[in-house]
């Protein structure tokens, strides 16, 4: 694992969003993914959590996905949590408690951005809707990220990534014809929703720079997804063509043989355009190969050693290859199964044929020479997890940094720094918050590293 090399911060580790303070009320995936981006870009992201046992925040930190096996779960040792919360600070506040909410308001008053991904009416219930936020901080930028948005008749809908994908049309785009939708093997619209959240914050910051005014940006995860099926939507609104039709979705192909010859929203209708089994035949031993024109096809034939079958006239032109894909793919796969996937892709690429191995998560970390060269991963220390690999942002910027710098905060790690240092609470007031249920849940043991500040003013402290 290497630190990101070229394009490193030019001047003392400058970050694009330095000086921007974000109050992060988000949880689970979409919101935290957005604030992870903002934090890596240099914003001061203050993650507000309430880790009462059984709560979403508590469960989120306990998620077993990505926890080293044989480790007893606690609030500070899920790598899954740590990876999606790099470059943030953690403050614990009970927002159902008047005093907890009062502290939140004081925090908002000295911040630039509030972001959340609750269901649509939670903030109003807490009297923290946009109008109230404006009263606290006149030029606040408020980004809400909900399933269907804050307006429209179905605004109360709740989703997880997979059901958001279902409602947006994204799930339907994935699969083999005549089979159930294959869908997406992760919460694509949580990732995407978070990215739009970050974009909304930054574009609203520019607008504030120009006009002096903040605003509310009401994002809908499902709405962001629908636009990604835009060509299919126009095919419906312009041509009246339904997506539920024979041959759709066409697997990895641009068209499924034996079905009406229609465009299927994945670029030009060409063949070959598929994933092929490779040696030695393991679970992820596949390689995607595409020939976009006759020139690439002859190049591929050359890589295959100009076999007799490839000279058949039915394969000479693209239309024939599209029409005879079953035969074509069968023949190609007989060849690909003789080669290892990286070797295969490199041979194709050397001849100018687009081909890449299907890479698993392990492949990308351990075998992918490009991600390694570009410094996509960084190892960071963490008090609960030890040193672990983390992902960086997928771009370099010549003047500002894009690497992850700090693993996720421990729960409540920045209570004193933020509540005393930034908001001016006395040590005694902070300690009181641990006892009155506004800063720490009654039914949760206090973490050892918080014991001293929690004891302040109780008489137990020295």
């Amino acid at each position: 694992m290497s630190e990101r090399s070229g394009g490193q911060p030019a001047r003392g580790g400058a970050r694009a969003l330095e000086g921007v303070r974000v109050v992060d009320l988000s949880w689970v995936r979409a919101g935290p993914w957005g604030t992870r981006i903002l934090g890596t870009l240099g914003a001061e992201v203050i993650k507000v959590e309430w880790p009462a046992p059984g709560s979403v925040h508590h469960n989120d930190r306990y998620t077993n996905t990505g926890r080293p096996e044989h480790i007893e779960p606690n609030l500070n040792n899920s790598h899954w949590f740590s990876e999606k919360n790099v470059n943030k600070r953690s403050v614990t506040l009970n927002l159902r408690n008047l005093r907890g909410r009062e502290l939140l308001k004081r925090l908002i008053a000295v911040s630039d951005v509030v972001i959340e991904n609750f269901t649509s009416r939670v903030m109003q219930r807490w009297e923290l809707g946009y109008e109230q936020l404006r009263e606290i901080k006149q030029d606040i930028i408020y980004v809400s990220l909900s399933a269907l948005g804050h307006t429209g008749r179905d605004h109360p809908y709740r989703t997880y990534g997979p059901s958001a994908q279902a409602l947006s049309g994204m799930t339907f785009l994935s699969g083999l014809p005549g089979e159930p939708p294959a869908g997406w093997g992760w919460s694509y619209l949580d990732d995407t929703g978070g990215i739009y959240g970050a974009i909304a914050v930054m574009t609203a910051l520019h607008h504030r720079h120009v006009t002096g005014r903040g605003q509310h940006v009401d994002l809908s995860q499902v709405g962001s997804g629908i636009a990604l099926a835009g060509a299919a939507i126009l095919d419906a609104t312009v041509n009246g063509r339904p997506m539920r039709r024979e041959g759709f979705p066409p697997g990895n192909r641009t068209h499924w043989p034996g079905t009406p010859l229609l465009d299927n929203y994945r670029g030009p209708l060409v063949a070959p355009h598929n994933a092929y089994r490779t040696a030695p035949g393991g679970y992820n031993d596949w390689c995607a190969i595409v020939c976009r024109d006759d020139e690439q096809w002859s190049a591929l034939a050359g890589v295959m050693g100009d076999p007799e079958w490839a000279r058949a006239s039915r394969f000479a032109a693209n239309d024939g290859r599209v029409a005879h894909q079953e035969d074509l793919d069968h023949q190609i796969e007989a060849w690909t199964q003789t080669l290892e996937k990286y070797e295969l892709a490199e041979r194709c690429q050397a001849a100018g044929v687009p081909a890449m191995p299907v890479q698993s998560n392990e492949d990308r970390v351990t075998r992918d020479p490009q991600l390694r060269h570009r410094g996509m991963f960084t190892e960071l220390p963490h008090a609960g997890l030890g040193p672990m690999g983390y992902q960086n942002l997928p771009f370099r910027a010549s003047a500002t940094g894009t690497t992850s710098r700090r693993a996720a905060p421990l729960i409540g790690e920045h209570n004193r720094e933020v509540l005393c240092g930034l908001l001016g609470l006395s040590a005694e007031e902070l300690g009181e918050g641990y006892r009155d249920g506004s800063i720490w849940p009654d039914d949760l043991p206090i973490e050892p590293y918080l014991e001293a500040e929690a004891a302040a003013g109780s008489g137990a402290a020295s």
Partner: protein
Amino acid sequence: MTAGGPLADLRVVELAGEQGQWCGRLLADLGADVIKVEPPGGAPERRVGPYHHDEPHPDRSLSFWHYNSGKRGITLDIESAEGGPMLRRLVAGADVFLETQPPGRLAALGLGPDELRSADPRLIYCSLTPFGQDGPWRDFQTTDLVQLAAGGQMAQCGYDEEDNPDAPPIAPGGGNAWHIGCHFALVAISAAIVYRDMSGEGQHLDVSIHEACSLTTESAIPTYFSTGRVVRRQTGRHSAWSMPRPRTQYLCKDGTYINAMFNQRISPERVRIFAEWMDEYGAAADLLDERYRDAQVVEESQEHIADVLHAFFPQVTAEEACRGAQERGLPWGAVRSVDEILADPHWEDRGYWVDVEHPELGDSFRYPGSWGLYSDSPLAITRRAPLVGEHTAEVLAEIGLDAGEIESLRAAGAI
């Protein structure tokens, strides 16, 4: 409220193909004046179907319409003697230059980031390419499918082995490697805009679609780092290394599907809510039993609960199932095609659809439009995608060319 989106004061020059046109479209939605530079005769993306009334024509590609609405378009041969300097002049008046040329090509033409940025240090020069500007795979040829293979998407999408042992890894359609790259290009550009507001400086952004795809696989990479496990594909739900997870996608009465995900922490309260609902159809099986009030029992009964749901859903349509679930606070969703989405009045309520005028066809068409509601700087699709070369004369005049100069460029074949 101001007219125009949050980037209404900015001008963008886009020299982008299929990899980058969505980023330009989003910038146009956000209010920027986006000038798309195409080769004479028009961009290859104009030859991607489907077409208006299925008639192939460079001005009738629906894909091109979608990805290029809100932009102005000029044609320019950047390799010609006159074209290069003209692009330089155009970029000199712009805030952002977005390009998807093969690495090194623009530098060879004297239009690289160092050259253009030394002329204008405020310029944000964004290069969006398959693998970034350096590295062993820099010059590899890709397509959307090929990127989704390398990026990790395919290894995570597909079918349970027991259902479909011969199925390949599946790349979801719709051009999502390009979307993912464009989303991160827009992140990079937006951050650079904020940085420029504070520092007065632009910069060069080197965005890799491969890195963007690899980052957009949720828990896969953290799973490997923390457990060393390879994730496996499952029909209609998250890939995972601990297999199998209960199914989440169920066939309904109308032959379509619902995604009814419930995770291991589903509460007894939730089980009771959907059991009571299913009981109205006589399909609750034993789920109303007292024993399901125990969280431990619920967690251990996930497979059984999935079987009960599997038997229940064929009694209702997917839309009925979706509405019934949402009315009960269950986060489930129908697997919709665009037809059902277009019929859903919620999006109408939200002003999501935009009817875009196509004067050249004497018609207007419904586009997906407002992906975000900005209260002080609303998004808009200000115009349909440009016809080939539609704004060449207009834009060249804006950068100070007179009619004679434009005519001589035309005569030289540069535009």
